[in-house]
């Protein structure tokens, strides 16, 4: 993995965001076991990596992460950055026992927030679009968030059985 071409605002945004989000994860009252949390983190990180690999790769290259199309160390940190947000998403869902139509509302609100958050990162040049649009991200989050909830319920069922 290569080091950043220039260590500037986009790298600083990722570092601050990553440290702050991990501090919040540690500060929040414990709700899930360590292995459960690891799986949620890994799920979000892998989904981010695979999406990037498929739509920002060789034949379909719709955006770059960080300064270049190469696999930088900060690309890796960007994927890890998705972990805490998946954790917060599951955490709030579980804590407030969101059910029924409120789940739809919750997904829409989180999708809007995630899209706005990505918009901020586009502004900070963490993502550099080359044919991608923020609206596509909205649709993407709208698909990924229910999948994350399905993954959570699947895991919860497995853990409750034990």
């Amino acid at each position: 993995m290569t080091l950043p071409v220039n260590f500037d605002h986009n790298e600083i945004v990722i570092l601050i965001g990553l440290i702050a989000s991990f501090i919040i994860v540690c500060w929040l009252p414990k709700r899930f076991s360590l292995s459960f949390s690891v799986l949620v983190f890994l799920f979000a990180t892998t989904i981010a990596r695979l999406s990037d690999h498929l739509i920002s790769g060789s034949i379909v290259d719709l955006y770059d992460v960080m300064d270049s199309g190469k696999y930088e160390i900060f690309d890796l940190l960007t994927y890890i950055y998705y972990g805490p947000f998946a954790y917060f998403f599951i955490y709030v869902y579980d804590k407030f026992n969101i059910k029924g139509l409120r789940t739809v509302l919750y997904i829409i609100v989180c999708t809007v927030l995630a899209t706005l958050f990505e918009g901020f990162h586009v502004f900070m040049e963490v993502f550099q679009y080359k044919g991608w649009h923020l609206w596509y991200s909205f649709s993407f989050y709208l698909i990924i968030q229910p999948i994350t909830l399905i993954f959570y319920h699947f895991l919860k069922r497995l853990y409750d059985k034990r």
Partner: protein
Amino acid sequence: MLMELLFWITMSILCVITYFIVHKPLYIVERLFLILFLEFFITSYFAVISVNLEQIYIEKQMVPTIMFLCFELILLPVLFLFFIDLFNSTSLIKRLLIFGLSILVCLGMEWLLLIQDVIVHVNWGLWQSMLGYVTMLVVTIIIHYMFKAILIDEGVVTK
């Protein structure tokens, strides 16, 4: 090229079906962890080798790319998972045999991609790929043991 594509798709489907049918000693949580980790690790490995180091050139047309994706996203992770599953259920000698066999199968698949002109080795040899697969398998086994220790500690699985 379409016949070759069909071959890789068929192999991927057969590999997944076989994995689901065969008895697996690992608990599903461990397998979930492993498949997520392997997908991340393998795609990162090939990105570093092909994009950063430019040691492996992957054809940039649609059909070869799909063939490579079958190898990278389905066959290799499922095979690794299959071998780690077997690795955990046998004696030391069998473990070493399984380890060696798994590396040979991975190399065989890469060799097939080479002769089908899906990938081109630029200043790269199969022995370097072998080292890569050995490293990936060893790292995955270590990471799996660490995760399993957490699961045992939490009482999710037993020793």
